[in-house]
């Protein structure tokens, strides 16, 4: 049973919201959570959106009128970026959390740079961000390119 005093001085959700203090891995943690929640919200909305099919072509057309707008396309673009980042970073995290790509324990020496926060990890995060950007650019060309 938790005691009330245990909560005293806990950073709470504020501790999640300030990702810039501790480096790229913390930013990745924050983005992975944020994109996950965002994608879940989109998934629920998408299930609702497609359910209008069952009410016939008119209901489908009405739904398209609501979603196929510049704002709707911008949201879709954000979803493309979020899903790319979440997927690529997620694959990196599966390896990392299984102890792969982190380096081996050794004898730390001053200035004690942590081997787990290495450039393999950081470049994984950067690649996820770059790929998300590229996917968004491609998405924009499809959604706004008038194909």
């Amino acid at each position: 049973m938790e005691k009330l005093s245990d909560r005293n001085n806990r950073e709470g959700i504020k501790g999640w919201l300030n990702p810039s203090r501790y480096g790229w891995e913390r930013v990745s943690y924050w983005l992975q959570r944020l994109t996950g929640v965002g994608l879940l919200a989109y998934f629920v909305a998408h299930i609702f959106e497609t359910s209008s099919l069952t009410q016939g072509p008119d209901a489908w057309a009405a739904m398209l009128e609501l979603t196929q707008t510049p704002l709707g396309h911008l949201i879709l673009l954000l979803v493309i970026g979020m899903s790319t980042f979440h997927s690529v970073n997620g694959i990196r995290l599966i390896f990392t959390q299984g102890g792969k790509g982190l380096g081996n324990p050794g004898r730390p020496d001053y200035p004690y740079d942590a081997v787990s926060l290495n450039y393999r990890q950081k470049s994984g995060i950067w690649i996820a961000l770059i790929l998300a950007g590229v996917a968004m650019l491609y998405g924009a060309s499809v959604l706004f390119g008038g194909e």
Partner: protein
Amino acid sequence: MKIHYVTGLGALFVVAVHIMMRLIMPYELSLEYENVIANYHNIPYVILLESILVLIAIHGFNGLRVILLELRQSKAWEDGVTILTIAAMMGIVAYGTRTIIIANGLGFE
């Protein structure tokens, strides 16, 4: 945690196929009612859609459950979060499956 990894990788694969299938024709055309309904008449595609539904629902709601479990720690909260997320997951899968079944039975205009 293994279920989170497996559903995540599975979802990535099926969503990739779903998007590729959408890109075989121009975007606007792929949204036309007849074309969308035609997808629901294609059984392999229906299986793909159902897999997306199940995999993302498990992955997404399990992720939400983890976030909520980390927020507060009491038996009532933890049990409540687990029950609610499982109920929401089942609800979404049921609602999505309903769309797939009805759309599969719909004819072309």
